């Protein structure tokens, strides 16, 4: 898990970008301190796909987020054009090479963060990119 120094700054903004032949859908969740830290979809956030425009978008309605944790999740699917596992692995690698999670509004601004990748080649061809960042 990464951390990002934000103090009482607001708004904090998130930008996720990816270049891939597949379809990528991204959402972010914030943990709920009143509910054992369970992640819930962030207020007023709507998922974006990689055919939507990429830009910094404020999180938590622009309110302060110090002490909370954000989970950024991108589901990458290949609805067509990938028939074999070798090509699938190449396509996921292309996406990994271009995937970027950035936050702005804290120190430094903007800042890029690490991510993990899990992929499944089965009746579905899907990969999942996740990052968790604690705001301090």
């Amino acid at each position, binding site marked *: 898990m990464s951390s990002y120094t934000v103090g009482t700054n607001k708004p904090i903004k998130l930008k996720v970008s990816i*270049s891939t032949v597949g*379809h990528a859908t991204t959402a972010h969740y914030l943990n709920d301190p009143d509910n054992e830290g369970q*992640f819930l979809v962030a207020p007023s956030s709507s998922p974006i796909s990689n*055919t939507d425009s990429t830009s910094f978008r404020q999180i938590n309605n622009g309110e302060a987020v110090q002490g909370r944790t954000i989970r950024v999740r991108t*589901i990458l699917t290949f*609805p067509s054009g990938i*028939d074999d596992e*070798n*090509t699938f692995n190449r396509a996921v690698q292309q996406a990994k090479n271009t995937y970027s999670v950035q936050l702005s509004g804290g120190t430094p601004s903007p800042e890029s963060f690490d991510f993990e990748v899990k992929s499944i080649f089965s009746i*579905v061809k899907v990969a999942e990119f996740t990052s968790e960042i604690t705001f301090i």
Partner: protein
Amino acid sequence: MSSRIILILLLIPFAAWSQGDTNTQLQNLAPPSSPAFVLMDISPSSVYTPESLKALSLQLLNGLGSGSSDGIPKNIAVEFVPFWYTTPKNMNFLKYYNLKKSDPNVEGATGYDSQNVFGDIFKRASVSFEFMENTFEVFDSPQNFISAGARTTLVKVLRKQDIQNIISKYNNYDAFLKKFILDPNNSIEDLATSEEYLKARDDLNDAVNMKPLLTVDLALAYSALLNNSNANFSDTLGRYGAWISADLALGFANNSNNYIHVHSVARYIKDGLNLDAENRLFNTESYDIGGKLEIELNKLSIGYEFITREGDVDEYRSIGTIRYEVSKSITLTGGFGKNFKSEDNTISLLGVKWGINTGEGALAIPGLQ
């Protein structure tokens, strides 16, 4: 001995790639349509449309009664697509299928309402290396050739209604995943059991795989005779050529899987596989022009092609071709008729396309379970 060495060299990339992946022995075999096979007239068809966009594939072709009595294919190719080894910038699913925005200010998928007809030039480009053994109607015994080839799609034109259908199906697919990801407890494993997801995916897959109205493909190939100590043929250049082919696909019977294809092909060949009266090889230059009419009925395709060769030689090739998709794992291809340089009907070729890996388990052959 030399053939075995070349065969091993050709297989090195395939073997190296397959390490660590125990399920890839069959899934990357592809139909025998690489440029060098076509150049040497040993492919079932001289007119083809590139099908495979696999990062790496292995192609095999066995000619019936053509020196393959031990059952080991004598004609083998490794083909790869460079695009998969690059990092494309600003790529997305719709751009990959050559859709673009006529107005860049329109947000979302709906803005992708036009097409880049030249968008496949790099994405579909492939490079191949082949090893083949054949008499080519010139030698008394089969000789070994090594070849290199490249091909791509120069132009692909989609129908306007097909573009609209892609966007419609894409929006359905996109909406499902945006709903799916809103629940943090939904895992990607759940997609495999979601009928709603699988339907949206299959609908989108069908939409982007509609036959284009027109495709124009370009290929280049060079083949050289490997030095054979039993014959003094080492001075020959082998054969090289460049050709362009077009496919006009007309749907009929209101069925999305039925097409009449009108193919045309033009080809330049410099051929060193000619013997004079004193058994010496000499070169010829020739130009091929021809076409093919093919009827595609769901899984069965039947066609006839006629190609004339003019220049230093005057020949023709008249071939009937057939292709049948037995299952998603196996496709049979064949060609029967008169080849260039043949005095009679001598072509009888069969190729098998093995096992596209769908991740659904072992290769299944209907009727053999």
